[in-house]
């Protein structure tokens, strides 16, 4: 995936998240928007790496690390899960079918893992 495609997906994912949760503007301001886009580029970088080495666990490990980083900065686990769900919806139009199905599986496994590990009260 080239950088333009990643940026396009990241921007779209950010817009969808902010459309669904307008309160995020109040909570995190302009910085939150920039971070959301940047984080989505990181999600895609990690998906790409997982695909390159054929290890979906690499993305799950990243998701666990990401949850620690974001929850400690007041971003709920549910938002991370929702973000990954948005990527599952967007990615299919952008990639080859093999890469697409691998990345979707990575995202689904990560969602399942986060969903199981999320303590009560962190869901929206």
């Amino acid at each position, binding site marked *: 995936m080239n950088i333009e495609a990643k940026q396009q997906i990241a921007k779209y994912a950010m817009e969808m998240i902010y459309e669904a949760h307008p309160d995020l503007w109040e909570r995190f301001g302009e910085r939150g928007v920039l971070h959301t886009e940047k984080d989505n580029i990181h999600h895609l970088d990690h998906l790409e*790496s997982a695909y*390159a*080495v*054929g*290890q979906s666990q690499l993305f799950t490990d990243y998701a666990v690390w990401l949850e620690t980083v974001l929850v*400690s900065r007041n971003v709920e686990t549910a938002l991370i899960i929702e973000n990954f769900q948005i990527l599952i919806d967007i990615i299919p139009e952008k990639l080859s079918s093999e890469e697409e199905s691998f990345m979707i599986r990575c995202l689904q496994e990560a969602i399942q893992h986060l969903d199981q590990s999320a303590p009560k009260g962190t869901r929206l």
Partner: protein
Amino acid sequence: MTINPEELARLFIAGEDAQAMKNILEYLETHSRKELFTNVLTPTMYHIGVLWERNDISVADEHLATAICDFILSATEERNVQNDRAEGKVMVMGLEGEDHYLGLKMVASIFREKGWHVQYMGPNLPLDHALDAAIRQKPDVIGLSAALAYRLPALKTYIRAFQQLDKPPVILIGGRAMKLADMTALEEEGAIVVRELDELEQWIQSGKEQSHEQHNFI
């Protein structure tokens, strides 16, 4: 004397470089620099990474700690030894976009201690410039470092490019990412994965023995 990495991390974050240096110089009276790297500085910086992950410290704190660690690495290194008969030439570099470099400095330092001619290229070196330097310098070994797991595709690209050189160097891959994922894919590309400085030291030693036996470098 021993040093508790969490205590050293506290000194780094507080900017107490003089006290940190004093403790480290005392430690070095009875320990090697490799022990300092492996048992003190690496766990200290990993702990700082964990504190950042938990939002217990800021990016600025982490930068201050990194700068002090960098200073200690440089200040404790002996470079006044003129090495006319180097064991070999190694180029050490970080991939484009990779800003972590403390591990690279440790690797460079271990090679120097073992009598190698080291060209430390620092972090974030774009591939075209790295290739250009490798063509001019013809190193026997190139050491690449990746701290984050998502650098794997870029590592593959670098490995493949270096292997196309007229005299392909041995490629060593290290960095924290080696502990975060299965690196078989990189080994299949022909690179040697080095997870710990101990492994690096063993590799240097075995290469030296081999070269002495064969009268031919590595």
